[in-house]
């Protein structure tokens, strides 16, 4: 995908949750790579494993979850680190978190610590990674608040999260995430909790930051519209696996996997004038505890064939830079 030297490369990642009810295969064999300065959109419905994948890249998988297989390779100038092998509480991963890879979350209401001032939370993020004085860090924090479009940054610095609106809090979160110039920003549904006019503001801001900071972004969302407006490349996830991956234009204009097509047919679009009927995907998402047999989408797929129920299609190229996990697009096996 894109440039030759990816910034981060995830190989055959599996994250399982061992619970009383069984083993939930939240992420069940995922491969993707993000090149520097590119934005990868990860799209899928709830429970598809997109957020867990993001947390795995941050090294933030907590019990009862566990990375059971795979590699998460972060490429630096001279060496490559496998994040999946680091101690999740250790020094090395802490040097990466917030510094090389930063993250913002869905709920701006609960992601900021309610008892500390906005500014102090950003200063903390800076001082954790940069050996600079407190005063200098303060100045940088104020600059960051201004950079993310928060009016009166010096006053906002002194305020507590509850004194800011949802959109402002998400801006503050972004300022905090950008504070150490990360090479990769993971955005986990950052606009989902926001109203549509505020969502537009935040998307606009993120697009601007992407240009100014040259940061690669892993943008997770369930909203195809947001993906279309943000991403360079797109992966579509279903039941813990990637079912399709391609550059953004390619995937929207030539979707190959029946699930991707189903998703696109499911959403009404403002651009659409005909009173067409939505092409809903039948059935429900299967339980993540169930043992997988063949293609995970086969039970809901209108094109499912015999082979789909018995064999796993695996993600294979269907066009240059465009891969799909579907037997429909293969020469007869």
């Amino acid at each position, binding site marked *: 995908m894109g440039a030759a030297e990816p910034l981060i490369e995830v190989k055959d990642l599996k994250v399982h949750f061992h619970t009383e009810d069984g083993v939930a295969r939240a992420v069940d064999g995922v491969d993707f790579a993000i090149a520097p300065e590119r934005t990868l959109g990860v799209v899928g*419905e*709830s429970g598809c494993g997109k957020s867990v994948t993001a947390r795995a890249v941050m090294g933030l998988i907590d019990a009862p979850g566990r990375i059971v297989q795979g590699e998460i390779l972060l490429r630096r100038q001279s060496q490559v680190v496998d994040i999946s092998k680091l101690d999740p509480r250790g020094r090395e991963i802490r040097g990466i978190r917030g510094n090389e890879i930063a993250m913002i979350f869905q709920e701006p209401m609960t992601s900021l610590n309610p008892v500390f001032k906005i500014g102090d939370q950003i200063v903390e993020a800076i001082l954790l990674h940069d050996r600079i004085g407190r005063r200098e860090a303060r100045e940088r924090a104020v600059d960051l608040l201004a950079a993310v479009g928060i009016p009166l940054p010096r006053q906002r610095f002194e305020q507590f999260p509850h004194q800011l*609106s*949802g*959109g*402002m809090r998400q801006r503050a979160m972004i300022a905090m995430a950008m504070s150490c110039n990360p090479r990769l920003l993971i955005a986990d549904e950052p606009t989902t909790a926001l*109203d*549509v*006019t*505020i*969502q*537009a*503001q935040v*998307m*606009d801001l993120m697009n601007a930051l992407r240009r100014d900071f040259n940061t690669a972004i892993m943008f997770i969302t*369930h*909203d*195809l*519209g*947001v*993906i*279309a*407006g943000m991403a360079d490349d797109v992966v579509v996830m279903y039941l813990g696996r990637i079912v399709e991956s391609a550059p*953004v*234009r390619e995937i*929207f204009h030539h979707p190959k996997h029946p699930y991707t097509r*189903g*998703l*696109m*047919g*499911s*959403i*009404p*679009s*403002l*651009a*659409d*004038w005909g009173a067409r*009927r*939505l*092409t*809903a*995907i*039948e059935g*429900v*998402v299967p339980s993540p505890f169930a043992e997988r047999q063949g293609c995970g989408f086969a039970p809901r797929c209108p094109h499912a064939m015999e082979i789909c129920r018995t064999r796993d299609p695996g993600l294979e190229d269907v066009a240059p830079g465009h891969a799909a996990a579907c037997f429909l697009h293969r020469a007869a096996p």
Partner: protein
Amino acid sequence: MSTEELLLDVRALRKYFPVRKGLLQRTVAQVKAVDGVDLAVRTGETLGLVGESGCGKTTTGRAILRLTEPTSGEILYRGRDSTGDPDQAMTDVVTATPEQMKLLRRDMQIIFQDPYSSLNPRMTVAEIVAEPLQIQGLMTRSEREARAVELLGAVGLSPDHARRYPHEFSGGQRQRIGIARALALRPKLVVADEPVSALDVSIQAQVINLLQDLQEQFGLTYLFIAHDLSVVKHISNRVAVMYLGKIVELAGTRELFGNPKHPYTEALMSAVPVADPDFKVERILLEGDVPSPVNPPSGCHFHPRCRYAKDICKVEVPAYRAVGQDHFASCHRADELSLYGLKSS
């Protein structure tokens, strides 16, 4: 528009929530959730009511069904009068006696947003669906059960689901159960309060299609409340846009989206992300946040965020008036502005 086709005529509806404090529960402020809404719903149509969180759209829906007591205004419903005759006269829901109200409720039902809290976890699906009939004292027990099974079929569930409990169902299936319950009394008007926004994308489409099918099958009229402009555009015949407790614009769907007359509508449309990387719209970014409904701005509530605002907008409340064929808006400059709409292809 001729009055015969009106099913519901809401006039100057207001709902203020008092903010109380202290032991004596003194009222210290008013949240003006709904602040003078005029809305007419025609028989057989789907009227979309769209707006951002806190604009009062849900309260409007709940006040129409008197799930919350309106502070003032009229809600005229064409239906039975107190004697139960299908009279042509309009009954005011707001002043209806409890007996009248109980009869009116047979005609007006609601579908909720949250498919989890809307079903009592301790009742079977059949009990849930038949509960409105039981409350209204209609039919015998076995007839009610038969009706429940029939309704489950109509919403795409199977009869053997009837004896199960809600927790055995997924969000989409639960929403179907809620829809079946709403239809149990064979209502004419259904207020659908964000019926798909808690659901996954692929399930949303199932429920939207189902709602459309049921409308045809049962001759329903929908007041469809949502924050998602695309969904509203898809399902509605006419659309009303709400901002800070007031309707700022109302028109037929094509007219509203193709030829908006209120700057807020324009901004809202341009903010919606479209699932097409080549679909370029002129982005009109609204500045700032929605002001508090406790203390709304003077004049036109929208003026602090409006890029077309002039001095008059700060002082004078714009009238909600006809600005075109079956097109209403409350903007001082509605006639002079040429706003950006979606081109119809």
